[in-house]
């Protein structure tokens, strides 16, 4: 039973050893050179302008929350889509009601102005 996990142990050791080699071999071979550009988080990327802990505008949260709530509802459409032939027109009608309720919610959100950006 325990011997089943032996390959996993080998794998873990290999990962650890490879990590150490990749981290310490290049500096040892190439030597080390200090400069201001080397201390940047992204040496050859876009230079960050502010700290990462800024505050986000509240509209980000609102949009994200609305996305989640509508996105998750799609989970009920997948099983229906797999069985749509077997369920026939009855299934289509049921799904139409389901989507209609979601649509009502979307209209409500839209009319309330929650989809306006930055107003």
């Amino acid at each position: 039973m325990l011997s089943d996990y032996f390959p996993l142990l080998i794998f873990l050791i290999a990962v650890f050893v490879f990590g150490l080699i990749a981290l310490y071999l290049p500096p040892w071979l190439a030597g080390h050179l200090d400069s201001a550009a080397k201390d940047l988080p992204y040496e050859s990327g876009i230079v960050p302008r502010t700290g990462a802990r800024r505050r986000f505008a509240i509209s980000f949260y609102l949009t994200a929350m609305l996305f989640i709530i509508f996105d998750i509802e799609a989970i009920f459409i997948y099983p229906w889509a797999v069985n749509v032939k077997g369920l026939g027109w009855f299934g289509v009608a049921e799904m139409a009601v389901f989507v209609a309720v979601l649509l009502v919610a979307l209209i409500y959100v839209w009319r309330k102005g929650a989809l306006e950006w930055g107003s």
Partner: protein
Amino acid sequence: MTINISGIGIDYGAILPELVVAGTAIVVLFLELVVPPDRRRWLAAVTVIGLLGALVATIPLWGQNRSAFGDTVIADSLAVFFNVLLIAITIATVAISPRYLHALDLDYGEYYILILGATAGMMLLAAATSLMTIFLGIELLSISLYVLSGFARTTLRSQESALKYLLLGGFATGFLLYGMALIYGATGSTTLRGIAAFTTAASSNAAGNVLLLLGIGFLSVGLAFKASAAPFHMWTPDVYEGAPTIVTTFMSVATKSAAFAAVGRVFIATFPSISSRWYFPLALIAIFSLFIGNLVAITQDNIKRMLAYSGIAHAGYILLGVLPGTAQAFSATLFYIAAYSVMNFGAFAVVTAVAAGGEQNADLSHWRGLFYRRPFLATVMTIFMLSLAGIPPTVGFFAKLFVFQALVNAQIWAPLIVAVIMTIVSFYYYLRVIVIMLAAPDEVAVEKRPLGIPTSTVLGVAGLATVVLGIFPAVVLDWATRAASLHF
């Protein structure tokens, strides 16, 4: 491949009341967008019409035994009993809402949508015969109530109460669900019928099945939380105090009723064969609720907090009726729930009316001399206090009497003795309210707004019902007896 739909038992008639309530919520959602802000009172009228429609839809289901949607919901007398009770509570709540909301500048249509959503969840819970529908019902009512407790968005206390309710409610939901998963794992079924079949089968040795017992334990924690029974009551006083009073009025009676409907279906109808296993923990919860509720209520100076603890105590009395596990005792429980709904709703409605009248402070000292300022409110409050204490000739007396009788018949002595002693203790804090209202008023100028017809009607009817049912309890007891004959 064709799927056999008829085997599932699709029957929209069985859940018509719930559908009407949910449909009304969608209609009100639409109307909220088009109705100008100063006409929002009409949304209350639409809500009441929808609820009356649901009431009409639920009556024909009385006496039936319609299991539908793959045994997940049932339309039987118990569901109708709770539907009627819950719809009545909701109509009364909505009727007294506009005045309170207007006084606090909370005139938003979303209030009615959320109330309807919560009601639909409670009705679903009362009709649920599957772990899935029990979960859906509880969550539908909980999520609506999370928002409603924070409905006074700019009030710090309301926000705080919403956050506490949300976090502790989510915690309880986790336990409830884990219990359901364990029960499903132990029995291989999510419908109560399937679970009951497993536990009664001789081969299953259900009473020794650790997975099942652990699952039932976790499930009980979740349900006890919703019914605010000790020791899972910690959220109750803070949430009741911080939430807008009208919301407290609604949830203090409606949530508790719906939760006990589920308790009845789970413990009495599904697990009677292993009652020896759940009897002791449940008795302990009941006794604990009686102790905590009644003793802490004495020290409270805020009327909302006092009623919160009194509600915890009443959860204990209601749970006592579940202990014998017989239909006869359960009918006493149902009568108690109905009586509690009327009198506790009335008591909180008076607090709401006083708050809407310009006296926001729920501190008991502000109620000094209420008899001289507001004779009608003080009189009905006296009736409700006497009834909550269980003094004849009010409905509260018979509620306690029937439950105690059931305990005597079942020879359950220890919880009975605790209940009797605690009832005597409770006289103190209920009568104290009356004494404070009778005391000579301080010379304070209080702005007085008229009660309005809906509020005075609701309060009058609730007060009258408390007294009339206290003199003629037979009618409701008869209904309760017929509703309590659970069958699967």
